């Protein structure tokens, strides 16, 4: 069995979770495009839904400390059904993986490296991710502390540099532009990209930490405080983007990058490049966490004791599928429409929210039955 991470500090754990909310700096497109001036309302609804995600994940994993979701499924549902449910999770991990890789390659190609082959960008970041997973995922936690610090610094820098461009009246009129249905739909989608993706941390990462009970399960309040902090970060990003971009929010694909390009110091010092470097650093974290989940889940499903052996074959399969199925065959618009309208709503969200809820219900019922039997 693989080595466990000893004595992870609370700060390292909290920043690892916080990074998923800080992704709002680059994923902030959804609330802007749907909500415009109401994007901050969508963000608040997102934070509320996000709490449901984390509550489910935290409650479920605290019942089985140091067990991955694969092991929990086997314990709760039995060997065969447990494996079937784990395969569903694996599909979610894979879909997230291809989605993130596509988004990353489009962003980098569109913003900084238009002439570089997209596959090469993906292969390079993947190699780095595989190397990190092989060396031990603890390095990702240590990295998250630095990453969170610099992301926070960047938000402060952006807020100051855009000071002249703020027009807070762009936030008006309140709650009139977007129908409630659209607000909720977008909030579900957005919360899934931010809070929902913490399942990689809770399900596949927490079990690797030996002192997880001391730093997470016994201090649940701190985890929720981190979520609030992340929520505030998301809200600030949303308000800044709306105040600067105004009624063009509905049209802009990369709102924060667009807002940065309006700063007055652009000619002297290209802030966009700093932003893109930060973006690549965050995406590296996200991609590594997803790869880690896929590799560990597959190793457990196939009963491979040393997960390191499966890194290379799984990596080759993922990159081949990404290239031949997604990059070369699916256009950006068709993919976005299909993924966000159907796959997410009917597959990803039900599994990410529904299955943990179902598992918790089964655990509860089993406990009740056991107590009754004992009586």
């Amino acid at each position: 069995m693989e080595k466990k991470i000893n004595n992870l500090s609370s700060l390292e754990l909290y920043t690892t979770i916080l990074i998923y909310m800080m992704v709002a700096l680059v994923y902030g497109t959804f609330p802007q495009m749907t909500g415009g001036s109401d994007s901050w309302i969508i963000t608040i609804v997102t934070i509320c839904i996000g709490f449901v995600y984390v509550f489910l994940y935290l409650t479920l994993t605290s019942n089985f400390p140091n067990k991955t979701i694969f092991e929990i499924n086997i314990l709760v549902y039995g060997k065969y059904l447990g494996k079937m449910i784990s395969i569903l999770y694996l599909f979610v991990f894979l879909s997230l993986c291809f989605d993130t890789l596509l988004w990353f390659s489009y962003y980098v190609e569109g913003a900084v490296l238009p002439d570089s082959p997209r596959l090469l960008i993906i292969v390079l970041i993947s190699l780095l991710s595989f190397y990190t997973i092989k060396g031990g995922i603890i390095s990702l936690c240590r990295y998250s502390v630095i990453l969170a610090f610099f992301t926070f610094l960047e938000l402060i820098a952006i807020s100051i540099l855009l000071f002249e461009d703020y027009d807070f009246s762009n936030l008006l009129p309140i709650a009139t532009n977007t129908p409630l249905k659209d607000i909720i739909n977008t909030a579900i989608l957005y919360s899934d990209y931010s809070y929902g993706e913490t399942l990689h941390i809770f399900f596949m990462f927490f079990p690797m930490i030996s002192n997880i009970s001391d730093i997470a399960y016994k201090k649940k309040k701190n985890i929720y405080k981190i979520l609030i902090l992340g929520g505030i970060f998301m809200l600030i990003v949303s308000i800044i983007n709306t105040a600067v971009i105004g009624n063009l929010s509905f049209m802009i694909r990369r709102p924060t990058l667009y807002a940065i390009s309006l700063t007055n110091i652009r000619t002297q010092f290209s802030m966009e490049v700093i932003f893109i470097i930060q973006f690549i650093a965050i995406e590296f974290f996200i991609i590594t966490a997803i790869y880690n989940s896929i590799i560990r889940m597959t190793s457990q499903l196939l009963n491979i004791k040393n997960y390191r052996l499966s890194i290379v074959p799984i990596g080759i399969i993922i990159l081949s599928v990404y290239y031949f199925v997604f990059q070369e065959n699916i256009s950006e618009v068709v993919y976005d429409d299909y993924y966000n309208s159907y796959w997410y709503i009917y597959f990803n969200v039900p599994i990410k929210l529904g299955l943990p809820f179902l598992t918790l219900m089964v655990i509860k019922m089993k406990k009740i039955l056991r107590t009754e039997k004992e009586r």
Partner: protein
Amino acid sequence: MIKKLTLLTLILVVALLSMTACARNIVQLENLGLVFGTGLDKVEGDNEIHLTAQVIEMPEENKNMEKKSGQSSCITIQSKGETIFEAIRNATDKCFRPLYFSHSKLILFNSELAKEGIQDYLDMFFRNTQPRPNTWIVICEGEARTILDEIPGLFIDNLIKTKKERATISVQNMHDFMTRLVSKTTAPITGMIRLKEEGERIDLEFMGTAVFEEDKLIGMLDEKETRGLLWVLGEIESNTVVVDSADQTGKIGVEILKSNSKIKPEMKNGEFSIKIDVTTSGRVVELIGREDITDVKIFKALEERMADTIKEEILLSIKKSKALRADTFGFGDEINKIYHKEFEKIEGAWQEIFPKTEIDVEVEAKILGIGTILKTFE
């Protein structure tokens, strides 16, 4: 350890060779056609778009190829195409260098083309990553090509920045122009220029503010009306107001230090009205005449006259905008922010309602200083 180092070296070598795009497509600075100004013209009887790109000249450039822009180190390249992108590609063939728009300072639209609508031409500049949203949009009388042949884009950019600081023009960048264009009620505006020939000397003249209905040019505000507009928009930061002396024989120059404007929409009996509050402060920088501005009564009267002068400019601007039936001030958007439900019903008819809307202007002017001397020399 050796394995790790080998892997790391391999990654670094691959990254160095490929991420800079050198492997496929060598792009050196001297091989790029750095564009400083773009001009778009309409030629009668030709459906194609006529593009003029003002490109920085390289030392080895064939000087006979295209016309040099004024006395600057820029050359202009003309091309045409069914779309702007095609025209750019055609220009690249002439220039032998790919045109690079990240440093483009302005897009010049010929007024004839602007009368037909410019929205379709802006799409290319927004959709691609090279052009920046803070590129100026300027309308020109006469051919854009002629202006770019004579005046360097960098010079026009500097002139716009200086004039904007002095608040005498209202040139908008792509972002601001598009924000107005997307609005259902606010009329897009931007600066208008032309070439002025005085003997052998050719100068650039700012004519005023071009006013659009949707994306079509419909009229113009002159310099005074433009200032009135800028007072309402709160975009006057540094300017001079010239006030007549009490006996109408002298002039007093007041430098504006600070100004603020508030647009307050009101609704009475289902009808909207607008209240504009402008507050400004300045200091006396020049006195032509014998007026004793140290006298409190005269001083107060001077403040009142200054407020009247500003109010007059604002009213002129409102009158012209109403005549053009173009809400250049963004009153519709302001009403929408506060009375959204009520305004939604009349939004479509705002163009007809705006000229009839009651607009009340209040100006409060304060003079904070009179300079280093008290009375003028006698």
